[in-house]
Every structure is written in C-alpha cells, then in structure tokens.
C-alpha cells in the first residue's frame, strides 16, 4: 500500500509535468470541502469563497511550477486550506470583515510583491499591453516557458515544433519581438513615466 505522503507527492509530480487538465482536476477535487470550510470559518458568501478558492489553487499551482513546493509532509488539503486561511486573513486585515476581492488586482500585486522583483507598476502595465499585441503563437510559447516552466522538449511537443532547437529559436525571436514592443510602448508613454524607475 502506498503511503499518504507518496500519494500527495505524486499529485505534485503530476501537476509539475502537466497543465490545465491537472489544474482543473485539483480544483474539482477539493472545491466542495474548501467552500464549505471557508464560508463557515470566515462568514463570507459562496461567491467570495470561490474567489478565494480560485486564487488558492493558482498559488498552489504556481508554487509547484516555480519549484517552491517540491514535496509535502502534510496533505494537499492541509496545504490548500493554509493558503486559503492566509488569503482570508489578509483580506480581513483592513476592514475586519470579509470584503469582495478584485482577483486581477490581487494577481498583479502577487507578482509585484515577489521577492527580488521591485517591479515598476507603470512599466509593468505597458509590458502587459505589449504582450497583448504580440499575439499567438508567441504568447503561448513564452507563457509555457516562463509561467508553466516547461522545457523545450515539452514545448516542442505541446506546440508541434520540428525539434527543441526550433522551439528555442522561436522563443528567442518571440522575446526579441516582445522587447521591441515594450520599448515602443515605453516611448509612446514616456511623458507619463518616471524614467528613473526604469
């Protein structure tokens, strides 16, 4: 019989090598229990609970992809509830009661607050705009590399490139195009930017 810890770590391994399918599986697996717990514990509505749960799953997934979470000594459930608890407490810190969350804003702050980031918010907004202009398949490719942390062999398979070298060349070209678009955006908006920060 396989131990509980081995099963938890197998889940982590599956998420690390997987993608949205695994993300969806985890979401469905703990959803009912999490929503029941958070709505009772923090007296929030079901919709607020869902917002927290979605962010919880995103953090869990991101921690695995970044290599921050490699194995669990407790269970996935305990880990998720821990993240949820922190999110709920953080939400209630200012108002002393649960306030609806702006998830997009929260994600932006999550990235800006990452250790060693010191990201300028204005340029960050322009980089996001540039990324939208980049289009597909470049967007997907660099997202697989920098967000999903997929290697070139995995990207070759996912995006049906000829071989990992082609995928790597394509990634470099996409990044070069994106840098150019970011520079153009910065130039266009130079009057509203604080150049010192850049």
């Amino acid at each position, binding site marked *: *019989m*396989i131990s509980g810890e081995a*099963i938890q770590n197998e889940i982590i391994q599956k998420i690390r090598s997987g993608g*949205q399918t695994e*993300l*969806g*599986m985890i*979401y*469905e697996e703990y*959803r009912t229990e999490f929503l029941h717990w958070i709505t009772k514990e923090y007296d929030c509505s079901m919709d607020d609970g*869902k917002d927290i749960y*979605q*962010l919880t*799953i*995103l953090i869990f*997934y*991101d921690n695995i992809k970044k290599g921050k979470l490699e194995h669990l000594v407790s269970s996935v459930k305990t880990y998720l509830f821990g993240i949820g608890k922190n999110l709920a407490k953080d939400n209630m810190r200012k108002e002393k009661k649960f306030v609806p969350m702006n*998830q*997009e804003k929260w*994600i*932006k702050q*999550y*990235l*800006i607050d*990452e250790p060693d*980031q*010191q*990201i*300028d918010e204005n*340029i*960050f907004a322009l*980089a*996001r*705009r*540039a*990324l*939208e*202009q980049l*289009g*597909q*398949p470049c*967007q997907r490719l*660099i*997202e697989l*590399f*920098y*967000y*999903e942390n997929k290697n070139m062999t995995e990207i070759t398979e996912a995006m049906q490139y000829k071989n990992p070298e082609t995928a790597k060349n394509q990634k*470099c070209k996409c*990044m*070069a195009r*994106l*840098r150019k678009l*970011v520079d153009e955006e910065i130039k266009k908006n130079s009057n509203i930017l604080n150049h010192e920060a*850049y």
Partner: protein
Amino acid sequence: MKPTENDITLVEKYFDSELSAEELSYFNTRVEHDENFKALVQREKIIIGAIRNQGLIDNLLYLKSIEEKIQGDQSFPVASGIKGWYYYAAAAVIALLVAVTFLLPGQESNDELFMAYFTPYPNVVEPTLRGNDLRTDRTKVFQAYENKDYQSAAAGFEAMINIKEEPGILLLLGNSNLMLGKSEEAQENFITLIRNYDDFDLQAKWFLSLSYLKSGDTENARKILEELGETEVSYASRAKELLEKVD
C-alpha cells in the same frame, strides 16, 4: 544607449538559468557597475512578470470556466466541472444511439435529433475576460463566439487557422459552421481535428456525429456514435488506476 546583442543574450540566458559560473560572475559585476545593463535586466524582469501575469490570468479564466460548468451541471450530480462534459456527452451519446437506431423514419427526425442534442461547445479554449480593455483581434474573435455572433467568429477562426492550425480553434470553427448550417464545412473541421490532434478529439467526434446527422448521413453518424459509446469516461479509468495503486 542601445543595448548590444551580446548584452541582451546575456540577460536572456540569466533568466533562463543558462549561464555558466564564469558568465554569472561577469553578469553580477555588470549589474553592480553598469546602470544601462542594470536597466536592461530590470526590463527583462518586468517582461517576464507580465508573461507570468498573463499565465495566471489565463488559468484564472480557465478555473472560472470550470466553475461555470459546475453551476450548469448541477442538475447532473454524477460529475462536475470540465469532466462533467464527458458524462453529459456519454449520456447523450447513449440516448442518441437509441434514437438513431429505433426512431429514424427520415430526414425530419434527423434534424429534430440534431436540434435536441446540439449545444455549441463553450469557449474554454481562450475564455475572454469581461471589461478587459486590452482586446486584440484574436480576443475579439473569441468574444464574437461567446456572444453567439457565429458569422464573425467563423470568419475570424478561419483566418487564424490559415496562419496556424490549432485544435481548439478547429473545434470552435466547426461549431460555428454548424450554427450557420454549414454541415459539410463543419465535418471537414472536425475530421481534420480528429486526424491531426489528440486534444479535443472526443469532443470533435461527438460534434462530427451530430453534423453527419444534420446532413442526413445516418450511417456515418451511427458509426461514430458507436465508437464514442465504447470509450470510457475519464473519471472511471482514473479511479481504476488509483485503485490498482492503493491495493
């Protein structure tokens, strides 16, 4: 001052963890003493942050699409979320098989069956965010599909696959064509998807059978429905796999 290609490569290699110990030491010295180089590093950091932001938003939208499906599937307690689609499809396949086998007097019934069983596949390929002001042409096409403007969506998806074929786009293009009454075009889309890709192939088979039904090709519709009926629903096989490991 314009950065050199070498500097850009050095920065890219740093963020891709590809620097040798010697290169890393050189990189750190440059960051410490060269303000222009430091700015280059900062720009790359922001760009990667923006890419990660997009990844997080995409996954958030994906989770929201699952949540919507769970809400929609509440009358189907057997399964929830994205997997619920498979249960729905499996149940519908069985019902449709029975109907095709026993109740098929003619073309009119085929149309009725099509009407009864066809619901366009939701846009879980690239869900759009309401109120998002960063709208690209691509996003507009997906929004047209979500807004049931199948004429614009079909034209947009067609243009996209002319540039690069993608399984999700083929599935939505096929659905748009079905909504526009273009069964043969839809069949072509689904057949291409089934032949060339593993993603969305079960969904494509389901919609292909419906499009055959719509065009009166009962024999082919039945063939695909039988094939679909023999497949296992994803949760069942996963449960068996887990059970083997536990034992």
